[in-house]
């Protein structure tokens, strides 16, 4: 029998995502991809996978997954509470996030609730054995492509695994939670900031904006003070001749409220875009929940590029800094080696 994770109970919106479907925007194909690229990269690194391996993006509440493989190593990354490993002959055992876990055939992984973020990620060592669509496993549900049958998971789905048993090695965990940064969301002005009045631009960077209930993989609609478009000149109003929409573009339709466009955004659009979220802060956007409040703060392109490079360097350091996770009740061998306690004698 081939190895699989069987969905016994689905979560609310679990989709397979990698780092996105790159190279097809010219054909109208959105990139999709993980809302929080940092968390997916960490989950993959914990499992020893390349960064662009597809993992399960979990929104709000995770699924129950039955192991139909000799063994499987999974990594959970993100603020998950009340995750459990069950059975078949053992009582339910609570498990932590931000680390790997080894499961055996017949055990059930019950992924808990995502708390304080809109997304968490599950990666499996070796990845899922599914055919990429246009070079990517990212699910784009609106067109029914990618991932598992182009949709969110449902009860009874069987996610095929590349490996039928987990690779040897210790379980790993993050040294410390990744720092996504706090404070205002950094944005770069443009491409159409000249379609807004100076008052409108000031409103945008001096006001609090609250995440509305209309927030999904396509984008986040914010509530707050309305942003005034220019009313004179040849660059005025909400409508432009449609042009390309980059990741994090902030379009402002006629009603004056900003919409930040994310992975499942359409590739071109006809509303003026006042600014674009710096790529360093896109993972933060991907974690926002309805009701949360942000401010937008402008930086230059050069600053945004540097912030992104610094974040990548911190991400690589976090990966280099993974710790061995002690199995519950087991011995932390690495710790013992480190402290020179291996033969029970301490040499001062």
């Amino acid at each position: 029998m081939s190895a699989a994770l069987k969905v016994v109970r689905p979560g609310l919106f679990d989709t397979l995502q990698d780092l996105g479907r790159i190279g097809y925007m010219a054909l109208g194909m959105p990139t999709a991809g993980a809302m929080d690229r940092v968390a997916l990269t960490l989950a993959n690194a914990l499992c020893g996978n390349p960064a662009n391996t597809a993992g399960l993006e979990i929104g709000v509440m995770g699924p129950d997954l039955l192991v139909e493989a000799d063994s499987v190593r999974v990594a959970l990354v993100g603020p998950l509470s009340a995750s459990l490993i069950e059975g078949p002959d053992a009582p339910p055992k609570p498990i932590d996030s931000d680390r790997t876990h080894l499961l055996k055939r017949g055990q059930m992984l019950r992924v808990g609730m995502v708390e304080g973020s809109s997304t968490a990620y599950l990666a499996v060592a070796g990845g899922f054995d599914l055919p990429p669509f246009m070079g990517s496993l990212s699910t784009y549900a609106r067109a029914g492509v990618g991932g598992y049958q182009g949709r969110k998971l449902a009860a009874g789905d069987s996610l095929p695994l590349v490996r039928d048993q987990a690779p040897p090695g210790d379980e790993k965990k993050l040294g410390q939670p990744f720092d996504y940064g706090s404070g205002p969301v950094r944005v770069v002005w443009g491409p159409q900031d000249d379609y807004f009045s100076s008052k409108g631009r000031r409103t945008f960077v001096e006001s609090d904006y609250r995440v509305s209930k209309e927030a999904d993989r396509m984008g986040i609609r914010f509530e707050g003070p309305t942003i005034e478009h220019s009313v004179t000149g040849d660059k005025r109003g909400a409508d432009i001749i449609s042009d390309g929409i980059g990741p994090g573009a902030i379009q402002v339709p006629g009603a004056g409220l900003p919409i930040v466009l994310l992975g499942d955004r359409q590739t071109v659009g006809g509303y003026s875009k006042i600014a674009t979220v710096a790529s360093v802060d896109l993972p933060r956007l991907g974690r926002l929940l309805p009701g949360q409040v942000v401010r937008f703060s402008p930086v230059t392109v050069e600053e945004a590029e540097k912030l992104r490079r610094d974040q990548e360097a911190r991400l690589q350091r976090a990966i280099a800094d993974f710790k061995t996770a002690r199995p519950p009740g087991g011995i932390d061998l690495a710790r013992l080696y480190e402290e020179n306690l291996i033969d029970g004698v301490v040499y001062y």
Partner: protein
Amino acid sequence: MNVSVRYLSCGDTAFSVEFGNKISPEINGRVMALHAAIGQAAKSGELAGVVETVPSMRALMVCYDPMTTSRAKLEPEIEGLIARGLPTGMKTRQVTIPCCYDDPEFAPDLKEVAERTKKKVEDVIALHLASRFTVYVLGFMPGLAYIAGLEKSLYLPRRSQPRVRVPRSTVAIAMDMTTIYPFESPGGWHLIGRTPLWMFDQRREQPVFLAPGDSLTFQRIDRKAYDRISREVEAGAFDWARLVRA
């Protein structure tokens, strides 16, 4: 050529090269020429860090990886490409799209279009068939093409009441353009026919049939031919290559 080109920031992973602020074949031609020139340069190992380019009516969005390159490095490289002179009269694909105008179910707006443009239904069909179209941009949905070049006397604004449900493969017109719906979706254009082709078919190696820059004409088919081609497309047995001349 005297060119005013603007470079617009799209964050730290993209910028837009804007060739003008109106829709015209000349401006779109320059967009497509730069799209092709960048693709060519990237293929021969230049322009490291360019991830992809996204053409639209009058601008090309250049997406880049800030780990590999930067705006400060890339923008002069693109300026250089433009300064060297963009190719003109590029080879374009000639695509023929079979379209059935006969069935009222396929073409519910044909009569109204004829009335509003003061023509006979047959003349509307003839003018759509006579139009020499160019694919300007794909977007809104995967595979949805905005195809300009409609005969001037058929220009109409979009419907004031958009339809909630337009069937897949419907051929529609509005303003100076025609389009073909790749999925069942809402739509505000005037529905004048239907092609048996699927503009998006994920089973195909190239799931999206049309590409920006394609030259396109429609060919009239009757209901019998429509049904036959439909069956072939459905079965994945249709020979798409015969619709295309290089």
